[in-house]
């Protein structure tokens, strides 16, 4: 929880600094964020690659184990599509935001970059993606005790989406139990690799020509 609050604190500090003109406009651009994101992805790749357990985990992954990431993907997209009915966004925009699966940094920048090529897409969509995916991470951490108690140990894993391999993993381990850590890791890794595929794909497929 403290981790998420520190992240939100840095985000709010950036918002205030940008709003009162403390940072040059180039620093507060999608391009600047993209370069920082590249550095982050490289480091994430290094830590996943150095973890010998990941390979053996993938070898052991059976059909049942894959039901968790599959349910997260399909359920998230159905939920986001349902939300589009009453929030004033198109089906594609809403589903693209949902397809971030909690990976706020990557999804918001991907949407900002893709939206540049698609004039029909709302200019604020990247901000909605950023906020929605931050909310998902915070919601998972804050509600894990209740979700695990009333909806079962898998519920925090499903709620966490791509964040279950890092930020929300401690909450899953604590409230669902250590036996859910393996499936949480697999879920997080699978969704992390799906975000850069699904977000631009959905946005381009649904919003082209709108």
């Amino acid at each position: 929880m403290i981790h998420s609050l520190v992240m939100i604190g840095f985000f709010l500090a950036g918002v205030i600094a940008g709003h009162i003109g403390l940072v040059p406009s180039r620093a507060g651009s999608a391009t600047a964020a993209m370069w920082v994101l590249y550095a982050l992805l490289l480091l994430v790749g290094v830590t996943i690659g150095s973890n010998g357990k990941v390979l053996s985990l993938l070898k052991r992954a059976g059909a049942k184990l894959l039901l968790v990431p599959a349910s997260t993907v399909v359920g998230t997209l159905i939920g986001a599509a349902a939300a589009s009915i009453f929030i004033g966004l198109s089906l594609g925009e809403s589903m693209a935001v949902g397809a971030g699966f909690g990976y706020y940094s990557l999804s918001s920048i991907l949407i900002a970059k893709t939206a540049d090529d698609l004039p029909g897409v709302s200019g604020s969509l990247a901000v909605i993606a950023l906020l929605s995916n931050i909310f998902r991470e915070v919601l998972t951490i804050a509600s894990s005790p209740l979700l695990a108690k009333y909806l079962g140990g898998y519920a925090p894993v499903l709620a966490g989406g791509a964040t279950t391999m890092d930020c929300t993993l401690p909450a899953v381990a604590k409230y669902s139990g250590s036996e859910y850590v393996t499936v949480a890791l697999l879920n997080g890794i699978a969704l992390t690799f799906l975000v850069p595929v699904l977000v631009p794909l959905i946005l381009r497929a649904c919003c082209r020509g709108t």
Partner: protein
Amino acid sequence: MLGIFAILSIGLLAGWMLRRRKRLISVCELLITATLLCLMGVLGAWVGCNEEVMGNLPELSLQAGSICLCSVAGSILLFRLAGRVLRGRPVGDS
């Protein structure tokens, strides 16, 4: 998108090659936190610099919250519907 996969793949390969150098890997983990904080600041500045976004922040937050809640609810509901085969014990453990 290809660039992102290329960077992730380079990272995976580098991580696999450096897997025995635990100290270096723990430095990478610290750098992830630092980079993530930096990214949040940059993203915040990106939002703060945009007057149109700042003017509509409450509405955008409401839309973001709605998508978040529906996405989480959709995932859990679908899993519960499809998950009868998993009933019994958690998967992924021997």
